[in-house]
């Protein structure tokens, strides 16, 4: 028995503003787990993130390793969390570590010099593409939506259109 992850979301800003509140309302979640090795070491961002949690729902910032550890731990099986990661690579690490999801929601991945924009909010680097390909091959749907009421968009399609991956 493991905990039921209600949503696994990729967003480089992790937990922020209305987005969290919106998803928390749309889904039956009782906890927000922000999974990032970098943020777990950054007191300032940790504070900002935990403060952005919607009222009544607690947010924790933990490392990828700890997420995998507590996912398997019986003591925590009653949690119904929303899991937030910064990039596709961390998402892949979680799935590799045993976390089961059918869909990964992608909010926004911010642009930097190693990345190219594939949709108006999502930028990917070559490593991201590899991770996304790996996830796609395991039958996981890659669903681009900022808030739950947006029209879903398939990231895989956009990647194909951009010629970043071959149709499969």
């Amino acid at each position, binding site marked *: 028995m493991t905990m039921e992850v209600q949503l696994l979301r990729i967003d480089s800003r992790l937990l922020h503003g209305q987005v969290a509140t919106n998803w928390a309302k749309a889904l039956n979640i009782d906890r927000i787990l922000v999974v990032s090795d970098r943020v777990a070491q950054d007191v*300032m961002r940790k504070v900002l993130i935990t403060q952005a949690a*919607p*009222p*009544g729902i607690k947010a924790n910032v*933990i490392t990828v390793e700890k997420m995998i550890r507590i996912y398997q731990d019986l003591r925590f099986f009653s949690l119904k969390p929303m899991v937030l990661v910064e990039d596709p690579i961390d998402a892949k690490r979680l799935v590799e570590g045993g976390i089961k999801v059918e869909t990964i929601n992608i909010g926004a991945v911010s642009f930097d010099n190693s990345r190219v924009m594939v949709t108006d909010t999502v930028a990917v680097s070559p490593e991201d593409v590899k991770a996304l390909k790996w996830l796609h091959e395991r039958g996981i749907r890659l669903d681009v939506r900022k808030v739950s009421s*947006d029209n879903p968009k398939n990231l895989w399609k956009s990647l194909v259109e951009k010629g970043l991956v071959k149709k499969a």
Partner: protein
Amino acid sequence: MNTLIIGPTGSGKTYFANKMYRFALTKEIVVKKGFTTFNCADYAHNPQLLMSHLFGYVKGAFTGANEDKDGLIQEADGGMLFLDEVHRLPPEGQEMIFYFMDHGTYSRLGETAKTHHADVRLICATTEDPESALLQTFVRRIPVTIQLPAFAQRSAREKLQLLQRLLTLEANRIHKNIRLSEDVVQALLGSVTYGNVGQLKSNVQLVCAQGFLNSMQNKDEIKLRFDQLPPNIKDGLSHLANNRQELGKLTRLLEPMMLIKPNFKRGMPEIDSYELPYNLYEIIGDKAALLKDEGLDQASINNFIMTDINLHLKSFYRQGKLDKTVNSLGEIVDREIIDLTKEIQQFLREKENYPVRESFIYAMSLHISSFIKRIQSGKPLRNMSTDLVSMVHDYPGELQIAGKIKKIVEEHYRFPIPQSEVYYMAILLASLRSEPKTGKVGIVVAAHGNSTASSMAQVVSQLLSVDNIAAYDMPLEMSPKVALDGIAAQVKNVNRGNGVLLLVDMGSLSTFSSKLSKKTNTHVKTIDMVTTAMVLEAARKTALIDSSLEIVYRELREFAGYSRTLGKTQTENEHGAAALATQKSKAIIAICSTGEGTAKKIKELLDKILIDNLIDDITVITVSVVGMKEKITEVQRKFQIVAATGVVKPELTVPFVSLENLLQGGGESFVSLIEQINDRSLNSPYSLEQSELLTEKTVQKYLGQYFTFINPVKITKVLWDYCNFIQQHSVVTMSNAFKISLIMHLGGAIERHLTRSEMSVDEQRLSEIKTDKMYSIIKQANEFLNRTLNITLSDAETYYIVALFDTEKKKSNTLQK
């Protein structure tokens, strides 16, 4: 109309309800002269009894119902019924009340038909969030909801007016003017913590009683002087000083002296739960006269009576607080045992003259509960180890008392208690008594800059919830003479008789030590190059009551930040022991008399909190007081002890939380403290609220990191101004953390505008938000964006900004609880 009043403890719910009644009376809305009050918490442990009080009952409805009886609802017919703490009303009671609200009829207990009729206006009050604490069907039927703000949320002007009003009440009582200086006003306002106006009232009474005593010779007025205030109220000044903005607003409203004259138009005090049941001033006057007749000098008279006043007010004021703690204890221990323990406590106090502290109820009732359960379940008796016997040997007095407690328990339960339990009880008594009473070492942080010192002190005192830290900020232009005086005042402030550690930022200040020692008559040691990490470490070390100034000073001099200590200890005298310790798994020890019953309950409680905080690498280990030292050493071989809790404080340099604290919900903050202390990333503890420059830079950094098209260097200022605009035009106070998240959101909104990918929201929600108070203000702020950047945000984007404020508001409301 029926009304629900929401507000934290002491915010004036009863007062407000009273006023509503008065108003209704003058307008002749209520016909009968009747205002009935019922506190639902009074019978919360017995819902049946509560319901019978409220609705009445018929003969035979339950055992003891020997005749028909009307309830309070009938009594209040034609008037108003005030239901305080309404969240303690069981759901079925709430259902009956809302049926009554709809139809005006109800049934007494034991009746099936709702045939009784009463015309009652209901005022309900609660300290809880009605969304979660009350049935929604119940809340929906109450048309008017009034939210009373917490004291801290009121404006500086309002706070001051409240204080003046309370002082006038006292002036009326004593028929004298009250004169008080600016710093007394500040201290009084700052002394309000969780108790709101009610607490302010108690504090005003305390200082007025004291002032009355000190100015007994003066017929016309009493003077309140800062140096005469009791320490907990003096602390109010430093509390207030920690909040510079608030202090600034207040100072602008204050004159150096405030004079309050009796004013009967402002009314005599009304009866409420913060009102003393007797005339304190008469008692003081009588007593003073009596003592004078006995030939005592003025100083000792004052001393005597002050102790008395403190006792009166404390015992009175604590009442409410204590009830609450007993309630949470009631979730773990049977009511019967708590009552029995109270009986024992009274017996010890009155008959045996044996000193018992507040923690007695906790420790003893848990102990009794566990051994009663043990005996009842027929488990084998605990054996008496030779350790136990030899330990008890040192406490013959406690053994004797324990024997008497045994008799009380035996009489109550009518079965024999084995002798071994008497021994355990003796140990428990001894350990409850032996806690040292001397004060902690105080800490004063002094640094150059307008808020450097106070923000460091604030971070640490919040993090560790300690009260032995004071700060002194020194603007660069401040003269050394002024600084010395200022620091000296703070040294006095935190001195608890065990010396004060002064942490300063520059070497030149370290020469102050000897001057300060002389000036304040306090042992002062100075360490320079202060950092937040160092203050944190100092607070942690001084939190151990028996740590001496010398030891803390020596240890801190060797302290070089959390990040480096780990590497360094390997080469130091500990020969890698510390490094090894970090590889051991972590443990919290829970100490109780036997290490079985009580400690197991504590363990369950802590385990639950640990899981809730997702901590999977700390084990809770139970330890008995008997052979405690040996057991702890044994635990230390396998584990790294990170914290302790229980009936006694072990001699370890780890955070300790008392049982009372743990059961009152202190466990949560305790665990997060442990987490933070053990977290090595804390080498840069960070105050978000520290300075504007910093946050503006941070914002810029984050904007650059997360957005693609907008130019952070240029846009930061604009968005910062946007926040300030909202702050100026509304009552919202924004924390820096909220400001950052708002700016990040705005950055997103602008970028979405530029890329034409604005967010959407359905029409209904959009129209709902247009009535929100924030809506028009945000519209205006958007107008400002339009002027500077020529960007118009869509309605949907505006919706999300309003919603952001809404969420923040809700959150700060839940935090208030």
